[in-house]
């Protein structure tokens, strides 16, 4: 026989022999026979194929999820990047893979690292959908036992946990939202890289977010050397992100370690997505204040001046607080007087035009709504303002503790009509029981918008989804809406390949791009032209890609 390690069972015969000699107890024929039968029933007689779905008759898996799990187990040997678009069920795919390995007896000890806000959700899904008894790591450490632990990377890398965890030998490690690991100089990256692990899954919807080297770093966690070493990689493929798509060789290599399904590939009948731009006019007072703020900002632009203008489009409170913070600084500030006057002006403003619009939109319906805003001050304001109109709501944001997030989600599902979320709250949480979303402020990054929409427009959503995008006329919002979002037809199609296009165009951060346009343009006309250029480039790339497909 070729070089195969053979492990024999020494214990059985010793124990049996001593039972015979000492007249020990023996099982009945019935129990003996049943024990044999259950062993046969739990045996997996084939190397290939998935056995997990047969054990999970209460879950209907989608074709692409089954194929993904099979591909990772059979071809990638348990190490891969799961990079489906948002809402296609990366968690389900990961659960299937973990379950398959557990059934086959290959995984007993696993570490699942997810954002703190998602720990409970993961634990619940694993136990309810997959019958995997996962533990969430709380006060009492359970690192050194044989089990499936779900925790956040921030907890795991903190002493005293860190050292204990790094000593463990994990059969399986999973990192959710793995794009946060792309920088190899970070502690998180080093930590994950140092874990002793057999199988490893990285989950991210945006594997190719920024620089080409990001993908090198992610792949190096799974399969060091697969993309060559650092020097070669940069030499061969350069730093040009285009190469990820242009270079057939690189593309092929990546496909060996990454599964990526797009909505249109799944062949599922998705519910419709109705997108409506809701145009809002500032009152004269508001408009005047806006113009004044723009004037001040243009005269002596500072680091945050663009932010103040954006904030004014969101709420008086957001803008007011930021400017107050600026003025509270003990240093010389150009236009201090102008700002001080402006604050007085803001104090006099009526309720925000957008807030009025919200009331108009939801006061006569019982349907649930999610409102997304970029600013916390706006979130607080809206919650108060809705309450004044007898509309119940709960806040939701990234900083909430796990338990609070779960509680808020549950309240929203069972009791209250509106959930008001800030950006960081958008990650990972599933809210498909709601089918209305108001984007109170538009993020300047289309991918973030897709993330938001993905919270409700995902598998499991039974109704058509209504998205309302608020934009105020005659402000920067009008430009962004008309010149960026409308033009690249973001709302009409599921974003899908937009991230690829942005990468191809080397637009790493659309938000920064737009910010720069606003900052560095001296006139409104210039802003328009630059924005138009930006969106032309994007839509041109879209068309080209559509033709190729």
């Amino acid at each position, binding site marked *: *026989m070729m070089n*195969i390690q053979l492990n024999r069972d020494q214990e059985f015969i010793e124990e049996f022999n001593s039972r015979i000699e000492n007249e020990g107890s023996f099982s009945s*024929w019935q129990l003996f026979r*049943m024990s044999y039968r259950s062993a046969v*029933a739990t045996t997996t*007689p084939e190397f290939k194929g998935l056995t997990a779905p047969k054990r999970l008759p209460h879950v209907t898996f989608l074709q692409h999820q089954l194929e993904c799990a099979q591909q990772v187990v059979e071809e990638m*040997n348990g190490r891969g990047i799961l990079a489906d678009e948002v809402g296609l069920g990366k968690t389900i795919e990961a659960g299937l893979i973990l379950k398959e390995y557990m059934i086959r007896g290959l995984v007993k000890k696993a570490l699942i690292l997810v954002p703190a806000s998602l720990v409970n959700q993961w634990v619940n899904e694993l136990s309810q959908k997959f*019958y995997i008894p996962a533990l969430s790591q709380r006060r009492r450490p359970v690192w050194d036992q044989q089990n499936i632990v779900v925790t956040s990377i921030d907890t795991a890398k903190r002493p005293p946990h860190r050292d204990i965890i790094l000593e463990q030998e994990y059969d399986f490690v999973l990192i959710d939202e793995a794009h946060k690991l792309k920088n190899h100089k970070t502690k998180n990256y080093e930590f994950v890289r140092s874990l002793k692990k057999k199988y490893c899954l990285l989950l991210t919807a945006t594997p190719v977010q920024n620089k080409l080297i990001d993908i090198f770093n992610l792949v190096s966690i799974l399969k*060091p050397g697969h993309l060559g*070493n650092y020097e070669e990689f940069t030499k061969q493929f350069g730093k040009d992100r285009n190469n990820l798509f242009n270079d057939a060789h690189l593309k092929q290599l990546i496909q060996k370690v990454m599964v990526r399904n797009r909505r249109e590939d799944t062949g599922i009948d998705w519910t419709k997505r109705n997108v409506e731009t809701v145009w809002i006019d500032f009152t004269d007072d508001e408009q005047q204040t806006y113009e004044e703020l723009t004037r001040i900002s243009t005269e002596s632009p500072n680091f945050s001046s663009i932010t103040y203008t954006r904030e004014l489009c969101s709420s008086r409170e957001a803008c007011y607080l930021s400017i107050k913070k600026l003025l509270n600084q003990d240093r010389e500030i150009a236009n201090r007087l102008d700002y001080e006057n402006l604050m007085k002006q803001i104090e006099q403003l009526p309720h925000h035009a957008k807030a009025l619009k919200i009331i108009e939109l939801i006061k006569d319906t019982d349907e649930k709504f999610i409102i997304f805003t970029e600013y916390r001050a706006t979130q607080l304001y809206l919650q108060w303002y809705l309450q004044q109109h007898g509309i119940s709501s709960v806040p939701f944001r990234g900083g909430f503790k796990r338990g609070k997030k779960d509680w808020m989600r549950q309240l929203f599902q069972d009791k209250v009509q509106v959930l008001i979320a800030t950006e960081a709250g958008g990650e990972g949480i599933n809210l498909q029981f709601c089918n209305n979303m108001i984007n109170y402020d538009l993020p300047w990054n289309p991918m973030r918008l897709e993330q938001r929409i993905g919270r409700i427009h995902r598998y499991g959503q039974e109704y058509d989804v209504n998205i309302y995008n608020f934009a105020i006329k005659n402000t920067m919002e009008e430009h962004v809406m008309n010149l960026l979002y409308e033009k690249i037809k973001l709302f009409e199609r599921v974003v899908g390949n937009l991230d690829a296009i942005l990468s191809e165009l080397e637009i790493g951060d659309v938000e920064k791009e737009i910010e720069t346009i606003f900052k560095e343009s001296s006139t409104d006309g210039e802003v328009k032209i630059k924005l138009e250029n930006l969106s032309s480039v994007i839509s041109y790339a879209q068309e080209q890609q559509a033709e190729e497909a």
Partner: protein
Amino acid sequence: MALENLHDFLTDYFTANQCDIIENYNGKLSIQLTDKMDELLMNRPFYWQYVKTLGYPGEPMKVSFITNPNRRDEEGEWVHFGSPRLHQIFNTLISQGKFTKIFERVTTELRTPLVPWLVLNIRISYTGKHKKDEIKSMGLQLINGAMITQIMDELEVLSLQSSIPDFCYTITPLIRLKSGYQRIIQYIENYLQDIDHTWAQESWHHLEEEQKLLEHFYENVNDDHPDLISRKDQELIDLKNRFKPQINIEVVNGGIFYLSHASSIRIINEHLQ
């Protein structure tokens, strides 16, 4: 699959564990648990600890299991092939049914010898890039050394019991248990020599490929970076753990079976054909 009928399996399990069946109809099984089975299955150690400390008689639970998927919304616990309850039961069986000593039921008024067999159900696991298992049910006649595979199928058709039947006596094995065990393991190893191991070859090949990639990855790292060197060493170990082909031989359960001459001869003859 050994569990064509999950419902019968559950019924047999609780009957074998001395539980009373209250209802058994159309895929629904209601059972009065015994103290022992309640402790084993219902996961309420504090209750039993409390009861025992106070010296009260415990009140074991009644439970209903539903195996007919069409009735799964009714009161009771839906049990299917993947449900945690079934696997909990499987787990209890691992220890409950591990060792046995069994006699064939023989009705006779003459002194009748019973022939000893060593029966071992063995799980062979092949682990490399992927994993599969195989179960061999081995029987060794402990007088003449005849060895047969799939003996469980033969035993199924016999009447078996835990105590020695009247007028019967057992023949003392000529082959000691431990050497019987060795013979069976040797047989398994010979079997392993003969079968195809492409899977292991592929795993070795894959391991070597990935090792090469890893070496290459760290090519330019020198001794000035002990942290990188130790990371590389760990990654090499991880690779071996993941790909190195190995075979595990594990005894699922086993025992000594005393069979009548007639049965012994029939089993051996059938096997020879």
